[in-house]
């Protein structure tokens, strides 16, 4: 026998028109297909057979932030870290605007929101970091139905242009940049803008000059630095 089915909100919860209870059986299962919603939505599912109706209530909940990550989790100031937010389910029509925030915008900035496109479950965003005097822990937060956080550490310039430890070659690289023989890249600045030093702490000033050369040179030969 065929039982008629109906949903009070097919955009949130869809059901087949009928479900057939096999001969000799007393029940049959059917699938309720739900769709992403922006807010909690109630749907009434009604089954009608031989003039008798029975109902069941279904609550469709919107997705929430399921995970938040940044990669890398430890960066030099001025190096970008990539953030990813993932929802517990597909974003509703129009997308899901996930609110973002940083505990220390002077060290790491994030856009105010990142939108997970409709039907998708994740979106990426850029964490822009800035020069810092010392290692700076930052908490990135994402809010959409729930709040999740991710930890990021922004580090001061290390003087290591070539990624193999600070050596005299790094000081010479800084010297070439200071003399305008080399044009520094953003990554060069992230590594080489150390000075001025104040009580052995880096206070980068947006340029690589003779003071940066001196600081890197000292580190290269094992003298006290930053």
């Amino acid at each position: 026998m065929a039982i008629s089915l109906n949903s009070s909100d097919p955009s949130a919860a869809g059901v087949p028109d009928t479900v057939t209870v096999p001969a000799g059986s007393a029940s049959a299962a059917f699938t309720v297909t739900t769709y992403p919603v922006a807010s909690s939505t109630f749907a009434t599912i009604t089954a009608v057979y031989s003039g008798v109706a029975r109902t069941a209530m279904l609550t469709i909940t919107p997705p929430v932030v399921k995970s938040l990550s940044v990669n890398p989790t430890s960066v030099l100031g001025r190096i970008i870290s990539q953030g990813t937010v993932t929802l517990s389910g597909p974003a509703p029509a129009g997308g899901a605007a996930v609110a973002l925030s940083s505990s220390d915008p002077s060290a790491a900035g994030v856009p105010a929101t990142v939108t997970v496109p409709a039907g998708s479950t994740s979106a990426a965003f850029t964490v822009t970091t800035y020069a810092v005097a010392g290692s700076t822990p930052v908490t990135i937060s994402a809010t959409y139905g729930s709040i999740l956080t991710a930890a990021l550490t922004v580090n001061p310039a290390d003087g290591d242009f070539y990624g193999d430890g600070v050596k005299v070659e790094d000081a010479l690289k800084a010297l070439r940049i200071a003399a305008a023989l080399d044009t520094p890249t953003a990554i060069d600045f992230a590594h080489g803008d150390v000075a001025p030093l104040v009580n052995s702490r880096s206070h980068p000033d947006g340029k690589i000059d003779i003071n940066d050369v001196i600081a890197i040179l000292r580190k290269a030969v094992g003298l006290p630095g930053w």
Partner: protein
Amino acid sequence: MKKISLSGMLILGLALSTLAACGGGGGADSVGITNPQQTKAVLTLSTSVTGAIPSDTTINGYDLTITLPAGVTVKSTTTPPQTDTGVVTSTGSAAGSSITAVYSPATATIPGKVRILLANGNGYYAGEFSKVNCDIAAGHYPKTSDFQLSTFAASGLLHTHLGYPDDNITNVDLTGQLSLTETVVIN
């Protein structure tokens, strides 16, 4: 010898009579006698302390520019135009320092320049720190006073002793406490 106090990093084009004894001038003199063509000029750069430098402060870096007279060049075969090996050397207590020099050849309107950066992690004393070897083109007779010191900056480190090797260091600008001196010998 000419000397500049560079607290304001002034361009100096001083006519320094004392330099005359070192050579300079050429071509026909006032009585029409032709002097021999000179082909080389060697600049010796030195600093002296003219202001109060805090104790526990080392001199660690210089950044200066020399403006060359017309017809005077330095050897530079690289691009960008770093001076060739041996053209600019670190000397005196700065010998062995990291040094680089950049040559900007003269144009029709701008004189040639040599910018020198010298850095040393340990530091060095005031005094002679560099020599610059220049070439003089035929037909040019520069005077020693034609070599100008255009810019000068001196960097140092103030050491706060916490017990080696844990010194705290702070960059300090020593430009106002040092005078730059340039001695030119033309031959």
